């Protein structure tokens, strides 16, 4: 499916998603936080889109907000799409988990929870993955300070 077809079909299904017109590698779709599960479910299960392979899940810590980024691909059709979600609340960021749709999300979300402190609602086993359970802070946040191990240049 081409990007134009994607834009038409997604705007049709979900009028409140934002698809900026920009020259980027993948088609970026900005989804409101509350809608992410619904949008992902539709895109994954519908025969036309069938984005059933999540090849990447990550988070970016921007100065004003967190941004969740989901890279999706269809194993059958081969088209790709990126879902982006803005998490405005920097104090207590929360988002619905996608691990019931994509099994790979379970470990990836635990990693994001560990390193960014994003809370995934309804995640079956949300614990730290790489760091110890009693670690303080979330190292990939930009405001993380560790005077002993991180040498700033």
């Amino acid at each position, binding site marked *: 499916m081409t990007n134009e077809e994607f834009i038409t079909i997604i705007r049709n299904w979900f009028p409140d998603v934002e698809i900026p017109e920009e020259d*980027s*590698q*993948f088609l970026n779709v900005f989804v409101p936080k509350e809608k992410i599960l619904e949008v992902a479910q539709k895109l994954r299960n519908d025969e036309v889109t069938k984005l*059933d*392979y*999540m*090849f*990447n899940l*990550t988070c*970016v*810590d921007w100065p004003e907000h967190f941004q969740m*980024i989901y*890279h999706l691909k269809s*194993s059958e059709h*081969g088209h790709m799409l990126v879902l982006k979600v803005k998490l405005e609340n920097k104090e207590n960021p929360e988002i619905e988990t996608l691990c019931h749709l*994509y*099994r*790979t999300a*379970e*470990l*990836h979300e635990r990693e994001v929870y560990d*390193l960014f402190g994003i809370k995934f609602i309804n995640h079956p086993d949300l614990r730290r*993955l*790489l*760091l*110890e359970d009693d670690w303080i802070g979330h*190292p*990939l946040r930009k405001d993380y300070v560790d005077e002993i191990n*991180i040498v*700033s*240049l």
Partner: protein
Amino acid sequence: MEQNVIMNPDGTQEYFVNMGPQHPSTHGVLRLVLTLDGEIIEKVEPHLGYIHRSIEKMCEKDNYRQIIHLTDRMDYLSAHMNNHAVCLAIENGLDVEVPERAVVIRVIMDELTRISSHTLWWGVMGMDLGAITSFLYGFRDHEHITEIFEETCGARLTMNYNVPGGVMFDLHPNFVEKTKAFIADFKKKLPEYDTLLSNNVIFLERTKGVGILTKEMAVSYGVTGPAGRASGFSCDVRKHEPYSAYPNVDFNEILYTEGDTFHRYKARIDEMWESIKIIEQLIDVIPEGDFQAKTRNVIKLPKGEFYQKVETARGELGVFIVSDGKMNPYRMKFRSPGFSNLSALDEMARGGKIADLVATMSTLDLVVPDIDR
């Protein structure tokens, strides 16, 4: 011990056993917590982070040239491919044209790496199942390739040979001759692998029908590489999103539908034949010319996001750069194949025995630094 026991309704007891972090078959410091009912595995829970070095955080402080050598240390058996992935992502951002010579050199190096990684995996796989001989055979062939690398790159394991715009040095004058000699030799050696393991009755008993992963689950867990393709998930990045010289070479994507341990094994053996095919096509036609395009000393990527996929020996490696226009990335993420492949281990091992878990884990070909990063 008392606390570790849970009573099942039918009178049997569930208990936990730690496998690793110091266990020979986990190939590194990976700790699995097994929930067992007798010898039957109920659940496998990986505990990671024993060699987490926060490479992603380090990348945010480093400039783009400094990042490349860090990726050697992730999946150290696919060092060339990891470097290649980062270089391609940077070149995408810079819009640099890589000279033809460098493109071909990179692909030959990638395929040699794939063979060396698979030979090592094959030896270790035999050893995991109790056959020491294969370990020696595997290392014998692995060693020839490391020698070829050493001559050209100056290093045997963490080569750091790719740079943005091409490769660091030109090929060593012996390279073509030695590679050809190796390929000719290896074509005779590879059938030995089949004689020793692939057709061995004990080996077949241990692997056929064990640790089955269906295609749906492979897609859902994001299991890529030979492990995913053995389940019928067509995911070869070299075919689907070809990069470098791959569009111009003729090779097959190995696909099986069974998804058991034996076919994951078979997929890797077949992949070595395909790699031989690719090297043979390219080794005689390495173009003359520059091996490196001119790039600025200080690399600054434009604002934006750059994603590059590369097929490593273990599967799909994704390099994701978020740039804010400075000389170091704002955020760098490595989607490592081992991480996703490991997540499916629970699915494959459930209902089997511990000995089957060892066989299954071997065919996932886990490299722990790649998982922890």
